[in-house]
């Protein structure tokens, strides 16, 4: 980082920001930025090369594979709509990692929180039946999903606070329990009587689906994700709560001595994280699936975890990372259609993208 950008943090107001922007527009700074962007392009290209080498071993031409992946996701309206649809739960699951991380907690439970969120949204929908439809149902499902996700994260938080159980391990194990809860419900009490004995819940009435924007063929779930990202940015940057979380994440003992209620802050960070993932589950349920099935939204939460690290726990970057990972995930369909490889093989690319990015040593922060 060039020294000219050092005082930025201390300047405030529009004038200060303009001055900072002017300082950045010097030739050395521009050259530095160009080298840096070039470097990152190289990093992502490396990921493509590595995955290309993998598919090459199965006799598939990587170049034509990448072209078809590109065509079926980015330049194809239907595929692009799918990417946007997937980006929303990925981003929300990523934000579910960001908020606890600010307080120094590792939430690997976005997976389970998302599933319970979808399950709770499905439960709300079943309970409502045809009494309430449209926006009222959507709002209630969203609240139900958030409550479900928060409750699931709350279990891990309580285990942490009462039993001192490592929250990374607790959230991880609860993911499996979440899928068992879902399976129990759709094989048992919530099974669709008209479903020929298949383990599916009653389909969501078409009036209660998240509305679709025709021009992009995507549902409005992405707006939930963007709104959530903005809310998280504002809450972490501008509220007393956000400041306290950062203090707890920085030095828990110092925060305690400064009079902060550390247990409540940790609990609140996990609950908010869980609620975000739960909202992601609701978006997937009410926007795409419309039905609960065993294993619904599997690996979405883990992908959100990748997105959060890819975006270095910064909400805006997490959104961008969620878009990238959603594009990769959707391109798995293209992989299957055009190359005859299993669609899950794109998991290699998901993993490798994060690995090549994590392999870049974090730069020392300017003091």
């Amino acid at each position, binding site marked *: 980082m060039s020294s000219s950008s050092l005082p930025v943090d201390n300047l405030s107001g529009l004038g200060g920001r303009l001055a900072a922007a002017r300082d950045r527009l010097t030739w050395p700074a521009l050259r530095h930025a160009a080298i840096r962007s070039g470097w990152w392009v190289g990093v992502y290209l490396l990921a493509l090369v590595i995955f290309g080498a*993998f*598919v090459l071993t199965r006799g598939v031409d990587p170049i034509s594979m990448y072209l078809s992946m590109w065509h079926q996701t980015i330049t194809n309206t239907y595929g692009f709509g799918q990417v946007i649809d997937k980006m929303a739960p990925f981003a929300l699951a990523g934000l579910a990692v960001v908020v606890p991380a600010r307080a120094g907690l590792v939430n690997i439970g976005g997976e389970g929180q998302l599933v319970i969120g979808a399950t709770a949204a499905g439960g709300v929908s079943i309970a409502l039946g045809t009494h309430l439809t449209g926006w009222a149902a959507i709002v209630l499902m969203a609240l139900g999903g958030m409550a479900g996700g928060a409750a699931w994260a709350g279990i891990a938080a309580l285990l942490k606070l009462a039993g001192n159980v490592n929250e990374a391990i607790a959230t991880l194990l609860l993911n499996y329990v979440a899928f*068992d809860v879902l399976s*129990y419900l759709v094989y048992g009490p919530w099974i669709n009587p008209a479903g020929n004995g298949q383990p599916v819940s009653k389909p969501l009435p078409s009036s209660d689906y998240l509305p679709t924007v025709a021009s992009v063929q995507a549902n409005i779930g992405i707006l939930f994700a963007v709104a959530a990202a903005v809310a998280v940015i504002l809450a972490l940057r501008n509220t007393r709560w956000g400041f306290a979380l950062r203090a707890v994440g920085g030095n828990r003992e110092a925060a305690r001595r400064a009079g902060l209620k550390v247990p409540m802050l940790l609990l609140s960070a996990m609950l908010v994280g869980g609620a975000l993932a739960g909202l992601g589950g609701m978006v997937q349920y009410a926007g795409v699936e419309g039905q609960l099935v065993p294993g619904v939204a599997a690996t979405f939460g883990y992908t959100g975890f*990748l997105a959060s690290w890819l975006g270095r726990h910064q909400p805006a970057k997490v959104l961008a990372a969620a878009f990238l990972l959603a594009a990769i995930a959707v391109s798995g369909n293209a992989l299957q259609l055009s190359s005859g490889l299993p669609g899950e093989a794109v*998991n290699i690319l998901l993993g490798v993208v*994060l690995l090549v990015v*994590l392999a870049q040593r974090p730069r020392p922060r300017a003091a």
Partner: protein
Amino acid sequence: MLGTILGSNTLLVTVLAGAVAGGTSILYAALGEVIAERSGVINVGTEGTMLVGCLAAFVVDVETGHAWLGVLAAAFAGAGLAAVHAFMVVYRGASQLATGLALLFLALGITSLYGENYVSSNITGFLSYKVPLLGSIPVLGPMLFDHDPLVYVSYGLAPATWWFLFRSRWGLLIRTAGERPEALRAYGISPASVRSAAVMLGGAFAGVGGAQLSTALTLTWSEDMTAGRGFIAVALVIFAGWNPLRAVVGAYLFGGAIQLGAVLQVHGYQINQFVLDALPYVLTLAVLAVLERRQNQFAPEALGQNL
């Protein structure tokens, strides 16, 4: 009466024998993770390491007909994936948890890319071998001495791992890397090399655990067949207080929880399938909640901290 309780086909004996057979894959992975964590590195990618071990062993068994060759392949595959983890966290300073999760995705993708043609393949795999005399002891015989060879190997491996960690020079280096890496450096040994070796050795163990799962226990290959066993192994290491011998108890406990569902159903007990499926995870959490405060004192001092 005694015969119905202690005979070879009773519920108790079936559950106990299933606990050992089903817990063995977790035991291998947990022993490997104990070694890695004693050196200071957490590898939640163990789930993925086991998975590549499952596939490597199965594929080699299908192609060559030699089950032991499959185990060797699984050990190398596990060590190979763990080497990526070691490179990332030891030499690139990457987050241990995030790298582990990325490795899980890598393993999911690799095993689906190379495993799709083997989903319906058949193997002979490892057969169970009843030890003469010992195998005829009531209860203990079927529980401990009527299993596949990888189970017998694990009986030796747990004490061997304990000896290796606490009585050998190598073990001392590994434990120092996990407690005081700077002391190791002062001693003229690179903690990075020691950690890398420990992580790869742990990966080899987890790979063999996967081999037991696919070529001895189930004799099948299916996608994502580890179903959280690797994560349980990571949790188990805390439960075991980073001690290989105590990992044995834990692994069989959780192996038993996994097997209980199948056994109860065979015997006609009507317990909800999904309650039983959730049991190993809930049990792990409950045990951790009860023990964790006491267990934490055993944690290696520099666990999770990059060099």
